[in-house]
């Protein structure tokens, strides 16, 4: 399991990731528009949602991170067995992670309070992306309709 890699190998992988990350950023990849606007953001798929949002905390290699607290790793994480669990977490948020469920923005809310939301299709897509990357090989996929059903039956925590 990746989490149990010896520290030296992990450090090496990290250093490599850094180098690659910087190189990729420098070459202005065709699929790197920089920063999405609120409307173009709605058109991106699960992989792009991961690389533009999720990896901020869960890291480019899906390893999560540990400081005074931690961000869970996706590699070798048994909770990923349940796609609905993962989708619910994205929809409802958990602890310091905000809810990403589709909702109407409260009128007049200040910019820092403007929640970022994903479409049901994006939630399904990013859940399927995570469950088929970072060493995960779950064959079952969650559908947009299933995400919609989850969203309608759950109240966002925040």
């Amino acid at each position: 399991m990746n989490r149990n890699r010896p520290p030296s190998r992990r450090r090496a992988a990290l250093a490599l990731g850094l180098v690659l990350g910087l190189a990729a950023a420098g070459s202005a990849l065709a699929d790197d528009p920089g920063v999405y606007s609120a409307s173009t953001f709605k058109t991106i798929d699960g992989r792009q949602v991961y690389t533009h949002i999720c990896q901020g905390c869960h890291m480019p290699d899906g390893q999560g991170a540990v400081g005074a607290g931690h961000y869970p790793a996706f590699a070798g994480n048994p909770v990923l067995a349940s796609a609905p669990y993962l989708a619910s977490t994205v929809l409802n948020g958990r602890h310091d992670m905000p809810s990403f469920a589709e909702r109407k923005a409260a009128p007049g809310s200040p910019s820092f309070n403007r929640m970022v939301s994903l479409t049901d299709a994006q939630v399904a897509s990013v859940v399927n992306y995570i469950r088929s990357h970072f060493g995960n090989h779950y064959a079952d996929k969650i559908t947009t309709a299933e995400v919609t059903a989850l969203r309608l039956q759950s109240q966002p925590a925040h």
Partner: protein
Amino acid sequence: MAVDEKGSMTRRQLLRMIGMTAGSAAMYQAMSSLGFAAESTFKRPIALRGAPKGASVLVLGAGIAGMVAAYELRAAGYKVQVLEYNGRSGGRNWSIRGGDTYTELGGFTQHCQFDRELYINPGPWRLPYHHYGILHYCKVLGVPLEAFVQVNYNAYLHSSKAFGGKPQRFRHVRADYNGHVSELLAKAVQSQKLDELVDKDDQEKLLASLRGWGALDKNYAYAKGTASSNRRGYEKDPGGGLSARPVPSDPMSLKDVLGSGLWAMLSAGENYEMQTTLFQPVGGMGRIGEAFGRELGPLIRYHAKVLDIRQDEHGVTATYEDTTRPGSRHSARADWCVNTIPLSILSQIPMNVGQPMAEAIAAVPYAAAVKVGLQFKRRFWEEDEHIFGGISYTDLPISNISYPSTGYHSPGKGVLLGAYIWGLDAMEFTAMPPAQRVRKAVEYGSQIHAQYPREFDNGVAVAWHRSPFTLGCFGLWSEQARARHYDDLCRIDGRIVLAGEHASYIPAWQEGAVTSALDAIGRLHRRALAQGAKA
């Protein structure tokens, strides 16, 4: 930015917008409901007296809340110890200076290449005059202050979709917006359109006030001339001697002003928290945390990562790891505990409190925010553009550029805040490696200052969700969550009380941390007195 997407307005919409008072009141209401713009509850220095003999308090976190609590409880006679995760005091009260190294989560390390004495404040960066609590501690600790410039009439307002992307001086937009609106309203008065709303007597006063407010000429017109140029500036400023004759400037048209959407950026400095006078500590916001750290000295144990918090009938025990010796286990115990660990982290630490507090701790997501500090080879914003302090606002993802409110006219390099980002843009910047965040800030900023590419030297970027000691910027309370959980978060649970900006109605501001700590230790002290000496 709340710009009308159609970019045009009916006359009725415009008149509605003119209700500046109504507008600010509505904004104030929205801010207040979120806890912003609330007045500080700090009235006078706290003076707790007579701690029960031998009574002790364990403070978790050496940020502003924790250090205020430790400072005052020590003064009251408690035996105080503080556990802090970082190797420095201050928490989010922090300045990154030339020579500093910062490693964010994921292992991305930045070595700040700024010149010595140059810095950015990744967290709080301004102190409103009415944040009496934090200002009180600046005074007590001998932290010198200087003015923080919020509104600079010569800074820019910029929209990538207006004026061909050319930034406009704040004074131009301000004067032309006020001027045109005044003229319209004066015309409405003069053509009897407001007779039902304003009686004849008041109409004259209204006209006189509009002339003054909008810099209208004798015919109540906002037009090119001395009156308007005294607000927006001249084409050629008045001077002395033969070449001195001033040339007035041409106001922009009402259509251009409205269509630009830049009016939406005019009011930032009018919010209660941004009103003059604002302060900053000389040498960086981090000077406050550093001064507190010196004051408390050996009371603070650094590199202490709290793993578990347990209370029983007699006291509270925190188990922690000394992070300089990974895997080590230590414990600290006291009669009482003031816990200022951010909820983003506290929600992951086992702690035996009741269900209401536990649910409150789990109910608050943390806001994403990113700041980028950029060093340039010279202070071109002063030398070329006569911008001394203050903030330019833009609709680009960097959101604003803030010029240093200190060191004016210094030769050599200068550091400005090249981006202060919220929401979706902040999440996306967080997902980038630090060097890419800096490069993006330079790229976007070049649209406002053409000097950027040539003068750029180096930069530092802090994305708060990657901060190892907070995992986010600040507690983002929704109205519903606050109604349901806030009181439970603040109530003492057995021997534990929470404090910090997250336990305040002034989230994200240091004043929230100060007033929360004072409120918490006041209640804790009363409870300790009620229980007598060591329970």
